[in-house]
């Protein structure tokens, strides 16, 4: 871990409402403690967020993100029904959509057994790397 990464960790901790924090990872561990957590005193952003940045997913609902940049397809062919719809229960590994990059189709699998709560992209739209595609509820 670089110092910069440690500083980032410290900054993030200080901005949090946490009192103490212990972290260990492989051969690295860190413990942080503060008496008065920051009362949300987030410093104002110096610059606006990028226009096209992927919207941050809400922490409470996990999302399936695009594993590569490409065109999002909800179904295997134009005349076929979509792989999944809100409310559908899917198994881990089940295909939830396709992403096309340069005429190569990639299947996007469900990360775990779950219920699809929301479809976040329109069929045929460009999706950026890491962009949320579905919101789901594990089950």
């Amino acid at each position, binding site marked *: 871990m*670089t110092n*910069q990464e440690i*500083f980032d960790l410290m900054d993030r901790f200080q901005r949090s409402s946490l009192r103490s924090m212990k972290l260990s990872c492989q051969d690295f561990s860190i413990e942080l403690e503060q008496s008065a957590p920051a009362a949300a005193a987030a410093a104002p952003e*110096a*610059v*606006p*967020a*990028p*226009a*096209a*940045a*992927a919207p941050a997913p809400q922490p409470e609902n996990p999302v399936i993100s695009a594993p*590569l*940049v*490409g*065109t999002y397809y909800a179904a295997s062919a134009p005349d076929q029904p979509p792989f999944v719809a809100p409310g559908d229960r899917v198994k881990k590994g089940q295909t939830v959509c396709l992403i*096309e*990059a*340069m005429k*190569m189709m990639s299947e996007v699998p469900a990360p775990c057994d779950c219920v699809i709560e929301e479809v976040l992209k329109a069929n045929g739209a*460009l999706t*950026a*790397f*890491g*962009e949320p595609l579905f919101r789901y509820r594990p089950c």
Partner: protein
Amino acid sequence: MLKRVLIANRGEIALRVLRACREMGIETVAVYSEADAEALHVQLATQSVCIGPARAADSYLNQYALLTVAKATGCDGLHPGYGFLSENADFADACRREGITFIGPSGDTIRKAGSKSAARELMKTAGVPVTPGSDGPVDTVATALSAAERVGYPVLLKASAGGGGRGIRRCDGPSALPAAYAEAKAEAKACFGDDEMYLEKLVLRPRHIEFQVLADRFGNVIHLGDRDCSVQRRNQKLIEEAPARCLTPALREAMGQAAVRAARAVGYENAGTVEFLLDDNGEHFYFMEMNTRIQVEHGVTELITGVDLVRQQLRIASGLSLDMAQADVHLAGHALECRINAEDPAKNFRPCPGQVSFLHFPGGAGVRVDSCLYNGCTLSPYYDSMAAKLLVHAPTRLEAIRKMRRCLEEFTLEGFPTNAELSYQILYHPTFVRGGCTTAFLDENLPRLLDFNRRLSESEGEA
């Protein structure tokens, strides 16, 4: 004219391309890795798309991702910048196959210029001087001796199949040649399974002189004068200038014509650079290589010619013919560039990226800054360490040097160390001020230059 261009790069060159597009009414699509989401050009582009994680192989070198975004966003052109895929012939071909104009030469041209041995032969045919050497292989000590006699010592004995410094011996006179020949041959046999040798003159303490060329698709080729990039460390240029002080008008004329012939020899189109070695006494020049892209140091040429090179790239790629002839190119004044890198010269130039806690660039008459930094931004550890380019333009070289000194005095960056103080010391070094730097200068003088640095920071500590 191109309508929408994908900028397949990052950092200051992405911003440079974006600015040129914006000034020509061309829309821009920025692509970025997860590490660059807050980059300046990403925020300024018409549209921005994340193409992958921080690792360049997964983002900026991901040809599929780039072409996918280019097509999906309706781009008709793609600017590769420098580095990354800018000299990748296959990528240039792939763009063309997909109907995207690659803003640079064709894949075939990139291939011709990229292969050093093939390029050497092409240049000889085109009448561009290459380093003197044997005509093809030298099979015996006798032929090696006679070839060496002809080109003059010192010479390099090189394995035809060589690479990575193996199978090479320097040889300073005839008495040492037989042993060196045998050694190199044996090493070549052991390393490459092929002991064919050839011989080349070693240019000692050369200067690195390069010529900027522009070529359109109608066969018009011109050059925009020269740059001296001799102040370098391990092939990393630190300070560049235009024009080179060491060239006489006659030599500049001859080298410029050779550069144009070199560009013609590879069927060049768009902006490119022909690099030469100039020998110690400034008499002979030799073709080194051709760079088939815009270069980091293109700004010094822009300052002395008044020609916007990225604008020219976009015009040429749009199929327009050059809007100037060789006779229209006039060199006015003198320009210098200092590259500001996030590195610590005192610690063997270790890269030191980090967050910019305070930033102030110099301004005023004759000063240009190209940088993607802003206050509070983070210079990513994933890519190269260049943080800014400071450029100055003044009527004379001495005035340019003085202007650059005051720019480095004004320049303030807090958050990580940079090489700015080292450049400042170089600008006071008598050899540099005289215009006497060869590519050996920086390595030979580094300890003393760094000593100044150290003493300065110590005295600051005392104050």
